[in-house]
């Protein structure tokens, strides 16, 4: 299985690369991870992963600055239906628009808006930073074998903005931080996590393994 890990100079890909390899090994899968931003890599991939650390507008700028990359992603994910995994800002970019440092258009694959976190409890600090538990919104093969709920495993979050999908059904899991924080989204062949699976140890590796074996 060929996995394209998109390196568009917007964040760390080393951990994501290593995590994919370990997850594949644990799932007994033979994968080849190709790192880069060449549209050819995207076109020939069976599955695609888009990491992203940074500000929404800056990441969109990096993505669009690579000739042919946005088009190749659209073709592979939206037309051919290849399974896609976005991490952190790589997930936020799926939204219709982001509101970090002004309004920026996203890919609009998953209708919604990226908004600043505003906890109901104003003593809570923003960014939402650290380890939090997850609550499933609905059952899904991607969550198989992952202990969720208040006594479940933890995921590592590091963000001040989060994706609020227009369709509630696109939310797969949430975290609680003075109100619901979108943790995992899924729509068709597209999945995205606000937290960093590559930094989330057991939970992250299991989720990645589930993605690699998932048939949308």
């Amino acid at each position, binding site marked *: 299985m060929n996995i394209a890990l998109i390196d568009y100079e917007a964040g760390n890909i080393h951990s994501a690369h290593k995590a994919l390899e370990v997850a594949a090994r644990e799932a007994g899968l033979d994968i080849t991870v190709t790192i880069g931003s060449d549209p050819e890599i995207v076109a020939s991939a069976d599955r695609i992963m888009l990491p992203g650390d940074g500000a929404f507008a800056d990441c969109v700028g990096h993505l669009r600055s690579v000739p042919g990359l946005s088009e190749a992603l659209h073709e592979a994910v939206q037309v051919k239906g290849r399974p896609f995994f976005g991490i952190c800002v790589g997930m936020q970019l799926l939204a219709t628009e982001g509101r970090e440092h002004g309004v920026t258009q996203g890919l609009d694959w998953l209708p919604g808006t990226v908004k600043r976190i505003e906890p109901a409890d104003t003593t809570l600090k923003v960014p939402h930073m650290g380890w939090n538990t997850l609550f499933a919104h609905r059952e899904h093969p991607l969550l198989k074998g992952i202990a969720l709920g208040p006594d479940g495993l933890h995921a590592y979050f590091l963000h001040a903005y989060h994706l609020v999908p227009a369709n509630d059904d696109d939310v797969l899991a949430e975290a609680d931080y003075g109100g619901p924080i979108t943790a995992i989204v899924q729509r068709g062949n597209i999945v995205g996590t606000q937290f*960093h699976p590559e930094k989330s140890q057991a939970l992250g590796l299991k989720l990645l393994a589930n993605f690699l074996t998932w048939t949308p």
Partner: protein
Amino acid sequence: MLKIRVIPCLDVKDGRVVKGVQFLDLVDAGDPVESARAYDAAGADELCFLDITASVEARGTILDVVRRTAEACFMPVTVGGGVRTIEDIRALMLAGADKVSINTAAVKDRSIVARAADKFGGQAIVVAIDAKKVSAPGEAERFEIFTHGGRTPTGIDAVAFAVDVARLGAGEILLTSMDRDGTKAGFDLPLTRAIADAVSIPVVASGGVGTLDHLVEGVTEGHASAVLAASIFHFGTFTVEQAKRHMAAAGLPMRLDAAAKGSARQEGAV
């Protein structure tokens, strides 16, 4: 529920750990990546590398350390020390740092905080504040920022500075009491609380940890979101797991799940 973080800090010079990690059964105790892997397995919530490399020629060594750590550990890493420019931050982020901490450069010119937050998102930008108490006994407490390891006063009020860098977009404050650093007398709780209560971003308490109760106090009385310690962990006084269990027993929300298990599974693979 979001958990309180316990963060071991490693001083790195020319790509090597300076103080050494003595309790761990490491093949090479001077290798930062080995120490990072051991802390990962012990359930540390994040790791902090403080680069104290002095020579300009050796500045790139930290990038190699960060890159190798990101490949070996699935734990969040903050890197600080000698970060002066946006280019320094980008290089560290691309190497695999999750957060980068700015100290002297932000004291000299606060605009770097806004520029860095614009580029990388505020969540990735930590401002490290080294402060000392400057008020006389009986006076209202005042804390001033010091640079150069606590030797050089700046005349800048620590609380006002913290409020300002938070406004400029910093995502976290790493607060070290230069009065307490190395004393094992506990955090400067009035300092920690003054800053934690003044800003809406998380504050990491640092400087002075000698007992596990000190870690608890940093949160309950200092209002910190995370606690950082170096020597109690390096010298084997306590393990990270002991620290977290102690804090949980004191009623704090801690992550005690399969951290060690997840890492053990990685161990076999790396």
